[in-house]
């Protein structure tokens, strides 16, 4: 081989080496995972349009936000943007990417060998222990004591043992009835058919034992128990306004418009329609309440204002264990 030809070959080899460096080798044929799929022009354009519509919605949201942020337009723009995006994604999933249905084996959920090994591991770890009972008892005691230590701070959440607080009431003999603005309630102001809400003078208004309903019935319509004679001067009746069922305020007053056929007057709680009969002293006529509405004996003082003539006939508010029947 002549020198020239050898140089020529080396040069060719060098050029090939230089030019080919860094270029990827032609890939070895790798088996495809997904089947080859051609997304159609129409599908691609449709998805692109939907994405652009979504973009328009997003931009619209920003614009609406900057221009006063009308709630309807904000919801509409962002909602539509996301709806277009949703459509783009679903269409993309159906038309742009390969569609495959695959069958996957579930494999075993039960691993007999590992189960045996874990069991063995746990069993062997305790084999050398002889005072099993003592240790179990000691561990149990530790668990109980530490559990108690963890739980006890929860008692700080509230006066857990002070349930007598639930039975306290500001209503006692002589307490004046006032309206929501604190003005004394005049007996004359309450005519038949009027529904008045009253509070104890000088006590908080927002507790369950505070608000009262004051109404007037014709005296001959009253059927109060004997021991409550004198509780309703001039047919005036006062009851706790808080339903004995579930603690809602009684704000419905059934007043018969067509005497002969309509049912008699009643106090009704709008939450579950517990219906109380004021004429008999608050007995339950209908609904879930389990005990009567507590009644407050009334008296009219020298200035014509209403006062409590004694305590309420029962516990106010919803029933609980400590409410004496």
């Amino acid at each position, binding site marked *: 081989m002549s020198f020239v030809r050898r140089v020529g070959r080396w040069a060719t080899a060098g050029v090939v080496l230089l030019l080919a460096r860094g270029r990827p080798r032609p890939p070895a044929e790798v088996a495809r995972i997904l089947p080859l799929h051609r997304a159609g022009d129409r599908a691609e354009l449709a998805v692109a349009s939907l994405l652009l519509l979504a973009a328009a919605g997003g931009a619209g949201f920003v614009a609406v936000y900057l221009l006063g942020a009308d709630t309807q337009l904000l919801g509409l723009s962002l909602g539509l943007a996301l709806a277009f995006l949703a459509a783009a994604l679903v269409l993309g999933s159906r038309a742009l990417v390969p569609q495959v249905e695959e069958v996957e084996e579930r494999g075993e959920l039960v691993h007999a060998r590992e189960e045996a090994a874990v069991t063995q591991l746990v069993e062997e770890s305790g084999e050398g222990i002889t005072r099993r009972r003592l240790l179990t008892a000691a561990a149990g005691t530790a668990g109980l004591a530490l559990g108690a230590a963890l739980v006890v701070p929860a008692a700080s959440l509230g006066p857990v043992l002070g349930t007598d607080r639930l039975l306290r009431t500001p209503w006692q003999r002589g307490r004046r009835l006032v309206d929501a603005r604190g003005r004394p309630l005049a007996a004359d102001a309450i005519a038949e058919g009027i529904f008045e809400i009253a509070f104890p003078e000088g006590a908080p208004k927002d507790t369950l034992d505070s608000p009262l309903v004051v109404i007037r019935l014709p005296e001959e319509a009253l059927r109060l128990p004997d021991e409550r004679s004198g509780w309703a001067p001039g047919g005036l009746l006062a009851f706790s306004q808080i339903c004995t*069922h579930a603690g809602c305020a009684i*704000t419905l007053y059934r007043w018969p418009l067509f005497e002969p056929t309509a049912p008699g007057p009643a106090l009704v709680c709008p939450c579950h329609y517990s219906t109380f009969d004021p004429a008999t002293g608050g007995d339950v006529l209908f609904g879930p309440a389990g*005990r009567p509405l507590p009644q407050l004996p009334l008296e009219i003082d020298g200035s014509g204002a209403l006062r409590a003539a004694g305590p309420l006939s029962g516990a106010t508010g919803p029933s609980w264990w400590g409410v004496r029947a």
Partner: protein
Amino acid sequence: MIRRAVGWLDERSGAVPLVQKGLRYVFPDHWSFLLGEMALYTFLVLVGTGVYLTLFFQPSYEPVVYDGAYEPLQGREVSQAYHSVLDLSFEVKAGLLMRQTHHWAANVFVVAIVLHLLRIFFTGAFRKPRQLTYYVGVTMLMLAVLEGFLGYSLVDDLLSGMGLAIAYSVVASVPFVGGNLVLLLWEAPFPGTSDFLSRIYVGHVLLLPLALGALIAIHLTLIVATKHTQFRGPRRLERNVVGTPLWPGYALRSLGLMCAVAAALLLLGGLVQINPVWLWGPYDTWLSTNGAQPDWYLGWLIGALRLMPSWEPHAWGYTFVPNPFWGGVAFPLVVFGFLFLWPTIERRVTGDDAFHHLLDRPRDVPWRTATGVAVFTWVACVFLAGASDRFFVQAGVPYEEQIWFWRAAVFVLPVLAFLLTRRLCVELGDGGRRTPASLGADRS
């Protein structure tokens, strides 16, 4: 590019084999399988909008004079909580959209969970090996209802106050310890202190969402571990799953569902008013309104409270079982007790302890379907009874007659529903071959 990203991840986590497996995870296709995903995506919307709301809400009963943009309430004494909700509705840009979307999402969340539960129940998807997944799911339903209730109780408007008064009464109705429990939770007799509001706030924005998030993680992990169920069909066997792999088809479709759910919730939140608390006004113990209704997912409880006759047993002079206990505690305990016990009951009755990866059609197991429909009818009757006041206020149908009707219906209709459904299943299906007795022998 992609190869470099994959390589980068693998060198730092060694997780690529897992990713590969995950991308090939097979989802069987059926529309009813999307209900659980709907619940999941609604939860994401709830977290997103909820975080936004916490940036403005103030959990305090401290009284302040309202001086905001909503004129009818100007000068009225309200709580800081209520004030801050009005501010975020009227003065925070996009605040009302977020609030209404959040509220709609809460309602849709429970709808999605309940529909998902019905699908699981009537197709027998709760059977071995999926009992844990099912128990976690039913627990999430309970938490979701509680979470929703606490959410709208924070606002301190008239409806939330009435709801809390009822909740207080239900807690107080627990025999022996009810009085102690309400003092622990409310810190004082109703309406309690601002600490109480802080507590339900922490419950609503931290504890319950965290619990739900953790349970969702467990739920999904268990689903992946046991793989999806599938309906019977060509090539579908107990030992395989036939469907679309996660990548590329299913992931895109599922993201599409996520966007669609968010879109629907935002459109509702933007266009359809929900819980306009400025119209209800602030709450005080002596205020209430006729025709008041909770969010839909509490309708069954208000119905149970309404239906219960005036019965309150006494013992030794003490109120042994205060009335709200029946509707507010015993009834939900029975319903959730049924849901939790059903897999065990069915296994005991059929003696079937085999693995089941193929789903039943409801008609395939008449006795299960009939039992489920009967229980559903029972709860639905109670639920409808809860709306009696609306029906009275709006349509003029006398209230007491309605209640008497439902008191009878809760006993009669479930029995009728059971008989009718069983008959229907037998007619539609394979002639009732798969009775409890035969199911045990039908192991495959």
